[in-house]
């Protein structure tokens, strides 16, 4: 028996070794170096110089752009995540009813998410929301003539990014769809017998039974929204403009690190982001006790 166990340990580590090695080399070591760099002045060409909390101090008290990027990021996350999930759920419920050609609809709604991160789509977006773009051209058709560049105006630029993110609700939708399929039809039938209408069924059956999936989607989408980079980079040509209105956190971090070679400062930014995301995930998990409903205890 003991011999068998030892054998299992060896085989287990052999099979798991790609992950374990990768985890140590590409995750653990970088996390700790990043923490170290965050307390240094480091431009990549000279050795890092220890400066204590100066980076953090500068970030919080002496960098207007930093606060701007925080504001832009929160606008983006708070604007895109709820809208995206709401669309995903609404469409999933629509598709959950037996519709003819459901496969086709499912593909049509999912396709945008599939090509979502691509540069091609971001380029397309700059043309749709530009001053002579698709949107203004379509507005012209209904008698609203405007030369506004939605992407070029500080007030609206971030909303074009939010629109892009909402357009790509497909993967959340598919996860919701899978969840909806797991709700037994008998629940709805029983509710109908009791005289419950569509709205009550939604709030008393659909939402509670879907809540674990909503939590999952909420956390994953929030994290990925915080890390959005490519569309902001392409749309603003790597600058985060106009007037820093699309300077998402990741983009600002990239600029500090790889355009100005302030590796220490950017590392400090990364650490603040890590803590921030950790806190948000923690809050979501903690409050989930009050709104996430598990059918069987410890079932997931």
């Amino acid at each position, binding site marked *: 028996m003991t011999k068998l166990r030892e054998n*299992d340990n060896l085989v287990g580590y052999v099979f798991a070794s790609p992950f374990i090695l990768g985890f140590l080399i590409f995750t653990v070591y970088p996390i700790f170096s990043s923490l170290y760099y965050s307390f240094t002045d480091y431009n990549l060409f000279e050795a890092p110089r220890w400066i204590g909390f100066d980076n953090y101090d500068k970030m919080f008290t002496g960098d207007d752009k930093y606060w701007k990027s925080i504001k832009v990021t929160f606008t983006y996350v708070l604007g895109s995540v709820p809208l995206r999930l709401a669309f995903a759920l609404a469409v999933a419920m629509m598709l959950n009813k037996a519709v003819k050609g459901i496969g086709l609809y499912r*593909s049509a709604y999912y*396709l945008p998410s599939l090509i979502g991160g691509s*540069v091609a789509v971001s380029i397309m977006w700059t043309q749709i929301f530009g001053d002579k773009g698709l949107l203004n051209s379509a507005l012209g058709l209904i008698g609203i003539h405007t030369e506004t560049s939605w992407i070029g105006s500080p007030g609206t630029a971030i909303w074009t990014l939010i629109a892009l993110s909402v357009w790509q609700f497909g993967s959340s939708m598919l996860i919701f769809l899978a969840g909806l399929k797991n709700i037994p039809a008998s629940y709805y039938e029983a509710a109908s017998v009791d005289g419950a209408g569509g709205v009550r069924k939604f709030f008393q059956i659909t939402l509670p039974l879907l809540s674990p999936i909503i939590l999952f989607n909420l956390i994953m989408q929030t994290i990925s929204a915080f*890390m959005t980079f490519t569309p902001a980079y392409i749309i603003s040509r790597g600058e985060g403009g106009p007037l820093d209105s699309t300077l998402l956190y*990741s983009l600002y971090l990239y600029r500090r690190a*790889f355009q100005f070679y302030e590796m220490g400062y950017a590392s400090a930014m990364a650490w603040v982001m890590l803590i921030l995301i950790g806190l948000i995930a923690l809050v979501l998990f903690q409050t989930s006790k009050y709104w996430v409903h598990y059918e069987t205890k410890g079932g997931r």
Partner: protein
Amino acid sequence: MIYPILWLLTSSLKPNDEIFTQAYSLIPSRLAWENYASGWRGFAGNSFSTFFRNSFFIVTVSTVGAVVSSALVAYAFARIPFKGKGFWFSCMMMTMMLPHDVTIIPQYVMFSKMGWLSSFKPVIVPQFFAVPFFIFLIMQFIRTVPAELDEAAKMDGCSKYGIFFRVIVPLIVPALITATIFSFYWRWDDFINPLLYLNKPELYPVSLALKLFLDGESLNNWGGMFAMASLSLIPIFIVFFVFQRYIVEGISTSGLKG
């Protein structure tokens, strides 16, 4: 939903002056195939045949690495009761949620010290160390394979390695295909890693090359830009229409993000 995509495809066939004067229209006055020729020519002697070749090379090698290594790890986590399994499993789950921004700078420093900048290595090699999402996806699938099969193979004198290659691998082919498809998509669309590491145009994959249309002098070739953007989406569409079923199942069972 797909209107913008159609619009992109049809814009690629519009003559340059028409793209903006009739932006809402889906129908070009004539088919301007020359956009494809002018876009394909690329930049400073590097045509899109170079960029597509780079993309296919990066995607193929890193996908093979990612799927094979993830399948090995998934088997360990799903079937082998080794010491510390719980610990490593939690590490993997945490890695899935870790923001890329935290590791990106030290990784860059590390690769630059190794002299790997301006080569495909930083983009490809990390993929050979298993991808948490794929480990998770394949694990979910291995769990649906009855344990009796492992037992039966063991009776027949199969080692754990034998069980993996002869029993598990043939049965989890659908999961491997799903992981392959997602790896293909993510690597094809990847922008930040090539942006950081591939600093020579002759190493650019398609995603990064498209950006060049937005830089400086090439700014006027809208037709060529739309044409190449459309081409860059074609491999994605083909894979999607051929493997739709796997994609939908992959997302539904594991909650992969697209």
